[in-house]
């Protein structure tokens, strides 16, 4: 009962923050960067590993594939890698718990800064449908690309970047080079 009332007060507090506060300005970029850097450093010192995001998504996907078609998942080397956790459940994985934390941390930050709003982020020059088509197609390319590169902006660029890993720096430079090259074609969506 005590636990229930605690959850209720927290929910009330969050609802209050959600409805009362106007969006606050973003944090100074260098300060936010130091914050992320210290979190990454903490991961190195405590765990001996860095941060990640696409790896956790792969674990969730493998969980799905393994639930629908177990023999198919177990015969594929890619899925098998994510199935090989201590308990055999792909969700029993460090990055899966870390990404759950990311969701919690992002929500806390959004709530205390008055930035939790149901919206579609885009420029006024494109329709919601266009934005959603681009979001989905971009997601496909990103999911595919991150698997070829063995990681994303978190697992490769940030983590591998700080560890001075050659492949991570190549990945990071490639990401920005290609993004700048094609940015022209998607300008309407963002400006």
């Amino acid at each position: 009962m005590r636990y229930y009332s605690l959850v209720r007060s927290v929910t009330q507090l969050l609802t209050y923050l959600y409805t009362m506060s106007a969006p606050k300005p973003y944090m100074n970029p260098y300060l936010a960067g130091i914050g992320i850097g210290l979190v990454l450093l903490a991961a190195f010192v405590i765990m001996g590993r860095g941060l990640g995001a696409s790896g956790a998504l792969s674990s969730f996907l493998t969980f799905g594939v393994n639930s629908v078609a177990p023999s198919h998942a177990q015969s594929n080397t890619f899925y098998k890698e994510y199935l090989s956790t201590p308990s055999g459940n792909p969700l029993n994985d460090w990055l899966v718990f870390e990404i759950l934390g990311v969701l919690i941390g992002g929500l806390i930050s959004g709530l205390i800064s008055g930035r939790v709003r149901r919206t579609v982020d885009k420029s006024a020059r494109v329709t919601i449908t266009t934005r959603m088509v681009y979001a989905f197609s971009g997601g496909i390319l990103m999911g595919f690309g991150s698997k070829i590169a063995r990681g994303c902006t978190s697992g490769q660029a940030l983590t591998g970047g700080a560890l001075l890993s050659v492949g991570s720096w190549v990945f990071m430079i490639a990401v920005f080079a290609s993004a700048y090259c094609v940015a022209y074609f998607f300008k309407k969506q963002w400006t």
Partner: protein
Amino acid sequence: MNAPFYQFGLFGNETALLFAVVIGIGFGFFLEQAGFGSSVKLAQQFYFRDLTVFKVMFTAIITAMLGLFWFSWFGLIDLSLVGVLPTFLIPQLVGGLVFGVGFVMGGYCPGTCCVASVTGKMDGWIHLLGMFAGILLFGELFPLIGDWCSSTSMGEITLSQVLHLSHGTTVLLIVLVALAGFWGAENLEKRLRTE
């Protein structure tokens, strides 16, 4: 201090998962605070209108890099137990190029997309769905492309090895490049504001 703590057996797997959540909360918090829950904000980087992505990423990299360097200098952390990520040159180059196109189209990266979704951005949820589709596509094609993805393997090679510099010199070099980059970014933004 014997770091990394987990590698020295200071705690078990379940505590490690607890740390995962706590570390994730910190990561998600600062991503959202930086403004990375908004695809429009992120994408301005690619039109030189707002260079927050560059500033945050490089500040984070040099903070963690310098922390690791000084901890190891004072013998507080055994760097050999913090695995350097292995390099697969061509796949990582190609993966990065594909990823970059996805970044401009989708507006998010995998981590920022989670923060966007949880703060109510519907395009974030759709982007997340797209990423699952992309990973599924990769998984299904893996029997065909798996070997290529492991090609041009160079092992756990670092920039210091490639540049034939000491760890400290490489760190210093990256810090100097980053500081020059920050200076350039501030000037560019100032010039665009006055125009």
